[in-house]
């Protein structure tokens, strides 16, 4: 589904990603862990197409297409979703209206018919119920005045509604108390499907107790220095990222 090869990227002239290789297949959940400044969020942003990042080498293909050549909105329509680390407030724009605009914009790009208000409302209610989210989420402006937890839940709700092929979760667990974390994790688990891939960027192993990944990768210094299964995350939890520097040369050639 997603194939990243030798990806190099920089921001404001500073090289952040120094050769990433990663393949995500449909149905797989990959966790990306690593210390601050390792390039985790940069990876998410480059995949979603944020301005200001310059790809200097490497390729990314998504469903066989060149992802890097697509605009952010085209990537969304193709099925890439980024759950933001810091969801953005859009004052005065109703959440329901925003979601409907987004969904119909994607459908239009895919050559599908618009959902009318009734169809959309039905879908929204269904998803709210499944995700166990309160109704008032629909009547508020996009993220305006939301608490940290509400913002993150809103991201998961958007994901549920847009039904992407590849979901990138950028530190969706950060700033959440344990109840909110469980709720977000439950939402993600509900969306796990044989046709859907996940890339979960996180600092902590905590989230992985609730969303059990198929693969864990350690990103440090702009490279993936180690890959493994769930047990890798537990080992990191125990020993910290401190020992990574020595291991880096081994991963450099990967």
């Amino acid at each position: 589904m997603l194939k990243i090869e030798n990806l190099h990227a920089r921001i404001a002239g500073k090289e952040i990603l120094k050769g990433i290789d990663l393949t995500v297949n449909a149905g797989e959940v990959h966790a990306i862990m690593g210390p601050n400044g390792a390039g985790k969020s940069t990876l998410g942003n480059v995949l979603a197409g944020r301005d200001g990042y310059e790809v200097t080498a490497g390729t990314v293909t998504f469903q066989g297409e060149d992802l890097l050549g697509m605009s952010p909105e085209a990537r969304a329509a193709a099925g890439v979703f980024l759950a933001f680390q810091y969801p953005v407030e859009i004052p005065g724009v109703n959440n329901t209206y925003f979601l409907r605009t987004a969904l119909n914009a994607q459908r239009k790009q895919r050559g599908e018919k618009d959902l009318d208000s009734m169809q959309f409302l039905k879908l929204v209610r269904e998803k709210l119920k499944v995700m166990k989210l309160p109704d008032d989420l629909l009547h508020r402006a996009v993220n305006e005045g939301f608490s940290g937890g509400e913002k993150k839940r809103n991201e998961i709700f958007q994901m549920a509604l847009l039904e992407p092929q590849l979901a990138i979760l950028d530190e969706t667990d950060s700033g959440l108390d344990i109840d909110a974390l469980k709720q977000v994790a439950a939402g993600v688990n509900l969306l796990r499907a044989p046709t859907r891939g996940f890339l979960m960027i996180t600092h902590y192993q905590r989230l992985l107790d609730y969303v059990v990944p198929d693969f864990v990768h350690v990103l440090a210094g702009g490279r993936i220095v180690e890959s493994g299964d769930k047990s890798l995350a537990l080992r990191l939890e125990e020993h910290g990222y401190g020992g990574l520097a020595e291991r880096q040369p081994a991963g450099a050639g990967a």
Partner: protein
Amino acid sequence: MDTKMSNEGNVTTLQQNAEVAEALERTYSAGFVTKLETVSLPPGLDEGVIRQLSAIKEEPEWMTERRLQAYRHWLTMAAPNWAKLRLDPVDYQAISYYSAPKARPKSLAEVDPALLETYEKLGVPLHERAALAGVAVDAVFDSVSVGTTFRKQLADAGVIFCSMSEAIRNHPDLVRKYLGSVVPTGDNFFAALNSAVFSDGSFVFVPKGVRCPMELSTYFRINAQNTGQFERTLIIAEEGSHVSYLEGCTAPKRDENQLHAAVVELVALEGAQIKYSTVQNWYPGDENGKGGVYNLVTKRGECRGDDSKICWTQVETGSAITWKYPSVVLRGDRSVGEFYSVALTHHFQQADTGTKMTHIGKDTKSKIISRGISAGRSNNSYRGLVKMEKGAENARNYTQCDSLLIGKKCGAHTFPYIEVKNPTAIVEHEATTSKISDEQMFYCRSRGIRAEDATSMIVDGFCKTVFRELPMEFAVEAKKLLEVSLEGAVG
């Protein structure tokens, strides 16, 4: 007198490529010219021209005399230069002060089909049966009113809704009593000019206790070249009456600047309520700042009676230059003045707009909500005066003006003036300036929404509090207008 035939500015004939034509049309869809035989006065202004104008309109002597007095006063005045506007000097001798379609209709059925078509194209149907349900329309074409719909229904309710010219002929007592009573002849340079040469506009009189049965609406259209439009509107709401009025404006695309200097006066007697909404879409000039309408307007309402209320709502997207401060004089005790404004400027447009709230009576209240949006290389200023006079015990004002910038080359400015002469008065002012952030843009795009649609959506959210005050149909209209006006604002 001369006859003009013209089809310049008609974009479709110039463009072979249908798609390009469509895109151009979208940027200013009202920019076409109607081919029509017109009767015009030659350019130039002196006492003779004013007498001639007054004679064409078959006005009584007192009206001619008023015009001449205003003209003499105007000659002693200079154009104001305090606004934050770059305004080329206007050559008042190069303007024609009267232009009208040659055929003068007696009723709507006799209106020239080309004219009716013009209004159809603009989305303002004048056929009564086709007209928007519940909205009476007066259409002003260049200098004259070409037709008013729903006269009979309004007359049954006792409401007078006609052109100003007719009012001067048919209701001279009312006109004499109220015209100039809110905006005196010598109020300012443009008001004086208007008082001397005003051509037409709407007249509304709602008698005591009557709730006007429908929305009233005037549609202003400048068509002829080198013609100024000097509209004059007067609305009188007697004790306990209610009226809601809406005006819309467009003009063809022309390379020269056109002048529009209007005066609008509102009078609300005890317990009366007037709601006046404007959707202003005069031709804004092209993307290089060439052409466009100079919109220099004096609008003022007076809450003359206790417990009266006047509410101004405006959506300003057109004009090369806008100089306009719809104001309320709160004379009656417990009277209320409100001002809701969305002003959008793009390319080289300049807007200096806001309001004046003058509190004279006790317990008077005013509210000002202004939203300015600047794109391209435009400049958008809010200028507002809140004045609490000595007798304004416990008067209150709340002002909130927010500006939104799109791009790096535009400007937003806020000039609030506050004068308080009564210690019990409370004045609150809040102002913010923000940009559509890259973050917001990327957030929308990463959800699949195109950059241009994202911009409209964000702007729309920003304007929401004002749109809420517009009559329903026009809120939709205003939203669409903003979208079109923002074409090409991103990227």
